[in-house]
């Protein structure tokens, strides 16, 4: 070949490459994050950073509301033939997404050795809700456990050691009794503890059942154990906190207002997701502590939060781009950055070894509580037809907490309902 020909072919090759690189692959990314402008901005920032370093891909983040809203949105869009390319949805939505044939197993597209190592790099506790039938369906992104937040000043005024949170159920009741304050008219001005029960009480309840040594569902998501005696016992304790011991407000406690209750001093202890950590840190005007869950026969909490799912796609380029973005979001540095910004647990051990994370945990020790709890963590309740099966438990719990029903009959009914729903999934 003459030099001219070589130069021309090289130029043509470069041009060809240039042309295909110039048409960027668009990737739609649904994510559920809510109030607190900074968080939406962070996700937007990640997308911008990714788009800059990957000129052939344009990620479009779409914020879709709460976890509930997001899964409805994603499924609605998917059924309309307009699925997002990648989304962060609850880890418990896994079976529903699989059953509706919407997501691609990550291990089917992430096939290189580097990819395989990537999938193995996350905490096993988080992978429990991410794997099924020998495949990996979701990649942990914003995962959490439940932790106790306590108001150190309130503890001091009540004559308790401000550095020690309750470690057992008995201590919960004892501390709670000391912390519950009444005014002259007999009205409560400060409650001992608030465990929210609106919307998805099953999650908080799962912490209590775990501490009592019970497991609520099997790994395959085909059977539940709502009427197990240990679960009934746990429900009784949950109800007793408000109805018998008087350390928790009666009736349903709203999830969204619990942190505000904490800031206002309406409650001295609250159970909520570690994802609220940054929120509490910014808004609590008093010294507070964060502790692991108390224990009865054991400690522990369910995991929670969202995984990254890659949707089935006829456009393989988009799918590959989505995978690329997923890898970008879960590098040790990004995982650390995200954990620091929100309070979610950075999902991989090496994220905790990064310099920024090491510095952060020295400044702010409560950040490691949720991570250290992982050794006691269990998979979050997740089954086929998840929404319906968890609704049965939610309804039963709300009946028990409002005093409408006793734990055993309520849970028996929930078990019957769940068994009926799961019947067609038994094989």
């Amino acid at each position: 070949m003459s030099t001219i020909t070589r130069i021309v072919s090289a130029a043509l090759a470069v041009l060809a490459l240039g042309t295909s690189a110039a048409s960027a692959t668009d990737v739609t990314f649904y994510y559920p994050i809510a109030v607190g402008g900074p968080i939406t901005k962070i996700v937007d920032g990640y997308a911008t950073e990714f788009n800059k370093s990957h000129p052939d891909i344009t990620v479009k983040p779409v914020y879709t509301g709460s976890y509930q809203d997001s899964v409805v949105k994603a499924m609605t869009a998917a059924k309309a033939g307009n699925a997002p390319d990648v989304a962060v949805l609850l880890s418990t939505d896994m079976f529903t997404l699989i059953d509706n044939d919407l997501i691609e197993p990550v291990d089917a597209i992430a096939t290189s050795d580097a990819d395989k190592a990537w999938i193995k790099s996350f905490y096993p506790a988080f992978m429990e809700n991410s794997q099924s039938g020998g495949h990996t369906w979701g990649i942990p992104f914003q995962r959490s456990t439940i932790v106790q937040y306590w108001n150190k000043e309130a503890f001091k005024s009540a004559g308790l050691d401000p550095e020690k949170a309750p470690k057992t159920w008995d201590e919960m009741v004892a501390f709670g009794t000391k912390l519950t304050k009444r005014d002259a008219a007999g009205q409560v001005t400060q409650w001992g503890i608030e465990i929210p029960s609106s919307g998805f009480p099953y999650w908080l309840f799962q912490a209590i059942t775990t501490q009592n040594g019970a497991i609520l569902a099997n790994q395959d998501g085909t059977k539940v154990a709502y009427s197990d005696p240990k679960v009934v016992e746990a429900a009784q304790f949950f109800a007793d906190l408000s109805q018998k011991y008087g350390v928790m407000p009666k009736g349903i406690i709203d999830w969204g207002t619990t942190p505000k209750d904490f800031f206002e001093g309406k409650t001295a202890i609250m159970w909520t997701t570690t994802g609220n950590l940054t929120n509490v840190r910014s808004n609590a005007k008093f010294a507070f502590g964060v502790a692991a869950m108390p224990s009865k026969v054991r400690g522990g909490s369910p995991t929670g939060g969202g995984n990254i799912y890659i949707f089935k796609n006829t456009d393989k380029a988009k799918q590959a781009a989505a995978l690329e973005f997923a890898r970008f979001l879960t590098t040790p540095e990004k995982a650390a950055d995200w954990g620091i910004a929100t309070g979610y647990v950075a999902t991989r051990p090496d994220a905790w070894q990064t310099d920024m994370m090491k510095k952060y945990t020295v400044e702010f020790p409560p950040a490691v509580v949720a991570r250290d709890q992982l050794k006691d963590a269990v998979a979050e309740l997740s089954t086929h037809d998840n929404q319906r099966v968890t609704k049965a438990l939610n309804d039963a719990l709300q009946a028990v907490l409002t005093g409408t029903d006793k734990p055993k009959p309520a849970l028996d009914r929930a078990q019957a309902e769940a068994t009926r729903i799961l019947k067609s999934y038994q094989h």
Partner: protein
Amino acid sequence: MRLNFHAQGWLLALPAVVLLATFTHVPAVSTLIDSFYATPRGREVAHFVGLEQYRTMLADPIFWRALQNNFLYALITIPVSIGIALAMALWVNGRIRGRAVLRLAFFTPTILPMVAAANIWLFFYTPDYGLLNQIIRVFGNSSVNWLGSPASALPALMMVTIWKEAGFFMIFFLAALQQVPPDLYEAARMENAGRWQIFYRITWPLVMPTTLFVAINALINAFRVVDQVIAMTGGGPNNATMLLLFYIYQVAFNFWDSGYAAALSTVLLLALAIVALAQFFLVDRKIHYR
């Protein structure tokens, strides 16, 4: 010529007819048909199951709860909003000072989007430091968990509906009041009739057509309540605020059970049809027309 205007009539109506058929009549029929099929899983095709969905529905305690709640909703919000609306209209119509401001205060809730109103009331209802509970505590009573207690949750939602609707109904009563011939009031005054007598003998019968119109409207609305359930309670606690249209939304878009959603929708259609018939037979016959 004759054919021409028949054809013209249909041509003019055609766009409307096509759209209405597409989004009202055909879906109504296909809802009924779909309710006889099981929900397909994944890529399967739906198969015929006869009355199976209806049997499931009749055995579903949540369905009965929803139906009961809708009836309670109608039973309470209709008379209360009508009563308040009439009172508002009487006040605004009378020679009270600050009438225009009053009218503003009464009608503004109607203008708000329901989700905005719902979120404002969520805040209002918050236990302990929400305004309503702060007021209650000033009077020495303990804070009420309005949305978190089964007994008060549904009434709490009803209050939001009434707050939004009464101002709207007030307008209709205002118009009706302004149609009452003033000589009737003169005559009554000459006979020394008291305020209440005037109301019972003159005002009430003459606004009866409006009352019935408003009642039918409120009845239809009572079966279509959904925005505030989504925004405030999600049907809880323990289905205390479960309402039919919200349940349909949940079954269709959370559980993705299309067959069952179709059965529930058919029931809703039936309820609305009954109201329509009631309107036709009762209202259009019994009104005191001038």
